């Protein structure tokens, strides 16, 4: 259980770090920030950021998953779930 908690935190930290590079210097974001409203990013920039996350974690994040995402924490959770799914798929192959 502890190990999973640690992994979650690492994903959250990495998502926050990568997103932090995208937004203007004056803004502060945390896991409760809204991915669109609190970042100042337009819809295209959010989709571009998702492409970066796909490469960073070597996963596929379908765009409909993004529609369900509200906060940065939700986004990190989605990345975490898709990363685990990927690992499970590879093990089964």
């Amino acid at each position: 259980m502890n190990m999973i908690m640690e992994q979650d935190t690492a994903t959250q930290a990495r998502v926050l770090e990568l997103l932090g590079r995208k937004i203007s210097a004056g803004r502060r974001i945390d896991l409760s920030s809204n991915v669109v409203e609190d970042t100042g990013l337009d819809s295209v920039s959010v989709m571009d950021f998702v492409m970066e996350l796909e490469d960073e974690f070597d996963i596929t994040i379908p765009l409909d998953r993004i529609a369900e995402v509200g906060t940065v924490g939700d986004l990190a959770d989605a990345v975490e779930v898709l990363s685990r799914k990927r690992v499970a798929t590879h093990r089964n192959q």
Partner: protein
Amino acid sequence: MGIKQRASSIRSAYGALQALGRDPTSLKFDRIVSPTRAILGNEPMMLFGTNNYLGLTFDQHCIDTAIDAIREFGAGTTGSRIANGTYEEHRALEAEIAVFYNKRATILYSTGYLANLGVISALAEKGDYLLIDADSHASIYDACKMSDAEIIRFRHNNPEDLAKRLARLEGMPGDKIIVVEGIYSMLGDSAPLAEIAAVKRAAGDNVYLLVDEAHSLGVMGKSGRGKCQEDDVEDDCDYIVGTFSKSVGTTGGYCVSNVEGFECLRSYSRPYMFTASLTPPTVATARAAFRRMAESPELRERLWKNSNRLYNGLAQLGFDLGPEVSPVVAVKLADPQTAVTLWNLLIDAGVYTNIAIPPATPNALSLLRVSVSAAHDDEQISSALEIFAEAGRQLGLISYGVNMATSRVA
């Protein structure tokens, strides 16, 4: 966000730009004189912001056949293709487009937007994957919203990035449909279709390629079929979508394909089934225009001569342009305010261009989208370049003096 809040947010976003002069979203032409001339207010305007690549909107034969058709078949069909809206003329146009492309079948749609919506949403179902170029047109994004498939974007015009994303789907069930455009409407750059087709072939079975040739039909390829023909990959392009609203000079859309069972879309593609079919004069215009495109390669030659002249002329003046010579010449500007100010100055001097600002543009670019027609004459292009030079100098966008600039491009 509620209706009232959204209206207020839109007003505040666009209000500042409208304050710089004309409202780009509600400009009205009082008269259209020719494919390249119009009257705006009381002022004559040279049109450098259309999609009239071959200048066929005023082609005499297109106009005459449209008038004959409206007399013979009436002004509209008042029905969809699956009800009372299929006439002999619709079937004839579908057959002629199939012959033009040397493909098995064509399905007509009432606009190019609906063609993308109808084809993409019908082909890709739940469990399938749509892999779309990140710079895709809004109609492709909207089609994705309408589809139950999983949507994956790949980096613009980047076959390696597409290959990487396809590799992540290896072993996953479901069809994978790659969606790209021949020429991209905002920057005028074209897709590396030979490389994209190679990625598709390497990805194995159940991987399909759809190419939207909206801006490349009549513009590229030995007989004007588009970028698929130019790059000699027509057999790899499973679905080719196009529009009548650019080179063809009217309105309407279509998809051609050799894929077995393609025409079944007529029974489940909702944008085909639940909208009125193309009007008889529109169908007649499209039939005449396709014939004209095939018979008049000199229109394409003229278009490229004009494109080269305008692109190179603007480049020599010092404007920052899109990556390649094309009938769509994108002038990149620092921000929406600069774009709107330049756009207003050009109109003041008699040159109409399109304005394109985020989020309708890739990479948050602010652009003037300048487009060329085969119908532009040499004098119009010289005159447009002089007006660009003067306006660009006035705004401090280019460093050349106007005399030097015009002498360089004369």
